[in-house]
C-alpha cells in the first residue's frame, strides 16, 4: 500500500525568511523621533505650535484619505505613517505665527500635489512637506517670513523679529551659540533647537533609518565652504559653526533631505546629492537674496535624483574583470 502523503503546503518564492523591518515600523520610529523637535516647538512657541501641528497632521491625513478613497486604494495605507510624518514635518517648517487657514492649504498641497498626484507613497519626486512649504512661501510671502519670538523670550518690541540668519544677513547680528543650541531664537517651529535635532538625528542614524551619507555630506560641505569663506574674511562671513546651528540646516539635513523616497538609491548618487545640497545652501545663504535656502536646495536636488540614480550605477562585484 502506498503511504498517504501530506500536501497543501504553502508555496512561495524564496527566501522564506523575512527581516523584521517594515514600512510602518520605520515610519512610526521616525514619528517617534520627531517628537523631540515637536516638544521643543511646543516649549518655545506654546499654543501656536500645538495649533499648527494638529491642523497640519489632521489635514494631511484627511487629504490622504480623500485621495485613497477616490483612487480606490487600500484604506489601510492611510496608517502607514507617511502622511503623519509629512504633516509633522510641514508644521515644523512653518513660522509660529502662521494663520490656521494657511496651514490647511499647506498640508493639503503637501499631500495632494507633493505626493498623491505622483501616485502616492514611493512614487513622489519631491519631499511632500517641502512642496507644501514652497507653495505657501510662494503664495503668502509676507506671512511666511514674519517671525514671532519664542513665548519665553519677552521682547520689548516684538512687532517683527529676525531669525538668526536673517539677523546676520541684514543687520550683521550674531545670535549667541547658547540660544542656537537650546532653541531660544526666532525661526520655524522645529528648526530652533539644534541640540534636540542632533539627538534625534543620531538616534535615526543608529537605527539606520536614514543614510549617514546625507547629513554627513551636507553638514561637511557647508562647514568646509563656510569655513573657507570665514578664513578669507571673518568680518563679512559668519563662523561656519553658526551656519550649521542656525536656520533649518539641521532639520533639513537629518529629517528632510534623508527622506527615503526622494533621495538617491546608489551610494555615489547619494554623495553627489548631499554635497549638492550643501553647496546650494551656502550659495543661497551667502550670495543669494534670501537668508535661508535649505528648502530650495533640497527641492532642487530632489529633482536631480532620477538622473543621479540613472548615471551612478555601482560597480557590480567582478565587473570589469577578465573572463
Amino acid at each position, binding site marked *: 500500500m502506498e503511504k498517504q502523503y501530506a*500536501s497543501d503546503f*504553502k508555496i512561495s518564492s*524564496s527566501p522564506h525568511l*523575512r527581516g523584521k523591518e517594515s514600512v510602518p515600523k*520605520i515610519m512610526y520610529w521616525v514619528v517617534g523621533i520627531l517628537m523631540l523637535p515637536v516638544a521643543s516647538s511646543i516649549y518655545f512657541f506654546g499654543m501656536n505650535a500645538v495649533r499648527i501641528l494638529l491642523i497640519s497632521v489632521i489635514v494631511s491625513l484627511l487629504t490622504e484619505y480623500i485621495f485613497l478613497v477616490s483612487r480606490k486604494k487600500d484604506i489601510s495605507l492611510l496608517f502607514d505613517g507617511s502622511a503623519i510624518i509629512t504633516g509633522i514635518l510641514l508644521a515644523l517648517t512653518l513660522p509660529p505665527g502662521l494663520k490656521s487657514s494657511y496651514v490647511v492649504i499647506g498640508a493639503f498641497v503637501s499631500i495632494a500635489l507633493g505626493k498623491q498626484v505622483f501616485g502616492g507613497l514611493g512614487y513622489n519626486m519631491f519631499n511632500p512637506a517641502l512642496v507644501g512649504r514652497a507653495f505657501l512661501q510662494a503664495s503668502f510671502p509676507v506671512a511666511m517670513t514674519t517671525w514671532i519670538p519664542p513665548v519665553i523670550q519677552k521682547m520689548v518690541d516684538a512687532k517683527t523679529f529676525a531669525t538668526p540668519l536673517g539677523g546676520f544677513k541684514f543687520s550683521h547680528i550674531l545670535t549667541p551659540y547658547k540660544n542656537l543650541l537650546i532653541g531660544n531664537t526666532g525661526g520655524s517651529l522645529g528648526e530652533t533647537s539644534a541640540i534636540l535635532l542632533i539627538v534625534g538625528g543620531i538616534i535615526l542614524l543608529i537605527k539606520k533609518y536614514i543614510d549617514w551619507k546625507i547629513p554627513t555630506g551636507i553638514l561637511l560641505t557647508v562647514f568646509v565652504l563656510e569655513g573657507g569663506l570665514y578664513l578669507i574674511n571673518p568680518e563679512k562671513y559668519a563662523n561656519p559653526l553658526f551656519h550649521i546651528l542656525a536656520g533649518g540646516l539641521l532639520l533639513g539635513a537629518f529629517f528632510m533631505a534623508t527622506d527615503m523616497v526622494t533621495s538617491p538609491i546608489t551610494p555615489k548618487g547619494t554623495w553627489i546629492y548631499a554635497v549638492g545640497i550643501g553647496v546650494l545652501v551656502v550659495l543661497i545663504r551667502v550670495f543669494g537674496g534670501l537668508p535661508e535656502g535649505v528648502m530650495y536646495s533640497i527641492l532642487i536636488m530632489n529633482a536631480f535624483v532620477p538622473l543621479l540614480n540613472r548615471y551612478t550605477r555601482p560597480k557590480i562585484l567582478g565587473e570589469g574583470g577578465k573572463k
Partner: protein
Amino acid sequence: MNKKTFPKGIHPPDKKELSKDFKTEFFPAPSTIVIPLHQHIGAPAEPLVNKKDRVLKGQKIGEAKGFISAPIHASVSGTVKSIEPHLTPSGKKIMSVIITNDGEDEIHPDIKPLKDDISSYSPEEVRTAVRDAGIVGLGGAAFPTSVKLSPPKEFPVDTVILNGAECEPYLTTDYRLMLEKTDELIIGAEILKETVGASKIYIGIEDNKEDLISLYAEKLKGRADFEVAPLKTKYPQGGEKMLVKAILGREVPTGGLPFHVGVLVQNVGTTYAVYETLKTGMPLIERGLTITGEGIKTPKNLSVRIGTMFKDIVEFSGGYAGNPGKLIMGGPMMGISQYTDNVPVIKATSGILVLPDEEIPHKKEYPCISCNSCVDHCPMNLVPTRIVKLAQNKLFEESKKWGLLDCIECGTCSYVCPANIPLVHWIRYGKNELMKLRKKSEK
C-alpha cells in the same frame, strides 16, 4: 583569529542548534524509490532500463547527454515499476524511473574501484570516474562536477577552496560531515587539488562553527598546502563569488566562473562524494541532508538514498509538529517551497525544512520607498530595486544593464526589504522573460 568576509550581506537567525548535535544517521531505503532522470544543470539523461527490468544498486539507469550533463544511477536493487513523469522538488514533472526496492541492496558487479590506491589516480582518471559516477555540486546548484574539474587551458587554477561555510540557516549536514569525515575530506581535497593542478587548499568555515575551525587547524598543523580560513558568519558567505572574494580578495568576473580567476570552489559534500567514488567505485546514489525546522518533531541529519520520498523521511523523523505551513527543499533563503511531500530526494537536496505556519512571514506588501536596504546589503553590489522596477515595466534589456543576470538569487534583498517586495521573485521573472526574448530573436 583573522576572520575573512565579503562586503555587505545579512545576519539572519541561524537556527542551526535545532539539528547541529545529532550525529548523521543512515536512513534505510524505503520500499519505493523515484529517481528523476534530470537532477542537474544541463541536458537530461536518457533512460537505459525498461519497465519490469531488474536493476542493481549502483547500476547506471540514465545516460548523460552532452558535455554538461550527468548520468543517473539506481540507488537500490529491485524492479523497475514504471518509467513515467513524476513531480520533483523543482516543481516540474520529470521523467523518472520508479523502482520497487527488494531490500537486498545487491550491488552491481561492475562496481569496484578503478585503483586500489586512492592517491595513484591520474587527473584524467579522476575526471572520468567523477563523470561516470554522476557527481554534481551537492551544495544545491547541482552543476556537474566533472565540468568544474576540467577548466580550460588558458585559465590555470592555482587554488582550491573547500566550501564549508554552510551559510544557509537551519542546515547542518555539511557541519556533521566535516566533523565526522575529517580525514576523508582532507584526502578528497588533495585529490581535487592534484586534478586541477593547484598548489593551495583553503578550507572556508564560518565562525559559528568554532569547533570545526580548531579541529581542522589542529589536523593540518604544519601543512603548507592547507590553510583553514575562518569566515565571519554572514549570509551568503557560502556563495562561490563571495567565498573567493572573502578568502582570496579576487573578484570573479561578471558572467564568469571561479576558474576565471584561477580558483576551484568545491562543496564539502561533493568533495566527500568524489572521495567515496574513487575509494569504492560506487556512483553518487546517496547523500547527506538535514531534516529540520520547527515544524518537524525530531530534526535529524541523515544519509539518504537518492530517490527517497520526502514523506518517508518526514515519517522517519517523527512526523510533522504543530501546524506545518511550508515544506522547503534546501535552506530557508534559497530553498524551493514544496506543495506536497510526495517528491523524491534529488542530488541537490541539501535539506528538508518544515516551517510551522507561525514562522511564515505574513507581511503586507507596500510600494518601494527607496529605503536602499537592498542596495546596502546586496552581496553582488547590485541595485535590486531598480533591476526589479525595470523588469516590472518589461524593460528587460535595460534591467540587464543594471545586472539582472548577475543576481545570484541569494534572497538577501527580499529578506531586508521593509516594504516586503518579493524582489528575488521579480528578478527570476526578469531573467526568464529575457531568456524568452533571446530565444525568439535567435529564431
